[in-house]
């Protein structure tokens, strides 16, 4: 999935490569809680990610799935 914001894209790659980081981000289907967890986890790695960045990336991924055959 393409993530446009550079710090969020870097965070996604860090997390995918590090399964020990997953538990703190898994387990909620609440979008607000998830965004807050991503922002905090990114900040702990020196990356600046906003909740708006995460929301936009999630919406882009939802749209990509809906449009996959369009």
């Amino acid at each position, binding site marked *: *999935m393409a*993530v446009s914001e550079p710090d969020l894209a870097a965070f*996604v790659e860090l*997390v*995918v490569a590090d399964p020990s980081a*997953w538990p703190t*981000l*898994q*387990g*909620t*289907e609440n*979008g607000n809680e*998830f*965004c807050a967890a*991503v922002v905090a986890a990114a900040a702990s790695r020196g990356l600046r990610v906003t909740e708006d960045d*995460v929301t936009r*990336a*999630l919406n882009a*991924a*939802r749209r990509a*799935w809906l449009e996959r055959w369009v």
Partner: protein
Amino acid sequence: MRRLVLDRRSPVRRPVLRQTIERCLRDPFRLLFQRQTPLDQLEAHAEARPPTGLVYHLSRSGSTLVSRMLEFLPDAWVLSEPGPVDSVLTYPAPLAERARWLHAIVSALGPDTATGPYVLKLDAWAVLDFDVFEQAFPDVPWVFCYRHPGDVLVSQSLQGSYHMIPGALPAWRLGEPLALPAQPSLDEYGAAMLGRLLDRALRAAKDSSHGLLVHNEQLPGAVLDRIAPHFGIRIPASQVDAILEVTKWNAKNPVLPYAGRDRRADASPEQVDAVDRLAMAAFERLERRRDLADAGA
């Protein structure tokens, strides 16, 4: 993460893989951290995992019941209508290239460890690409589930599948154009499509030594006494009751009890006529082939 998505015990598991993925994509973690793998990398990395058996079908013929029953076997890995498989078949590349990609994607979707059977239930139109599957998996046994095309057409007219929409499947996937009147009705197009799928299944049964034709009336018993042995799957006696429990429920919507019945009693005169002209000859040829094969079994 994949194990969480595909394991049959997972609470997000649904009868068809697309539904499972859509359920998973409600989870923002899976949505944000999903992966994409280019086909050439897939070919380079996918370890060969040929399936144990392939399930082709005419639609509305019991194939979902077959896959639901088999997935209750210990360590079974059963995928139903996986979209990525259809995606590689849809790409208009030469047959050999599509077969290579098919081999790679089926292997990539396979189980992490090959301890149990790996069964793929395909889309109804996959039998059009039988030659591609044969090149990718020449020794893998297959079954084709079908029933009277009148039953299928009536069911499809209530809730239609992708391949029954005129123009949805690209013309090159059909081979010869469907034999249709000018300005065909939806019923005529659907009946002709069913006739084509039945014809392809007959050709496959003639060309291949490892196919099995299964009429809907033979289910669910045929899963235990025909399909599993054909796939080389041994069903422990201790599992039979659990597998048969599945048959009490609607295969595609397992919160509802099973209420199967012949649909063609509800067919309109136009549907009866379309099936008679465009699908019945192919159905009767396939039935004769099944009778011959069953007599020789």
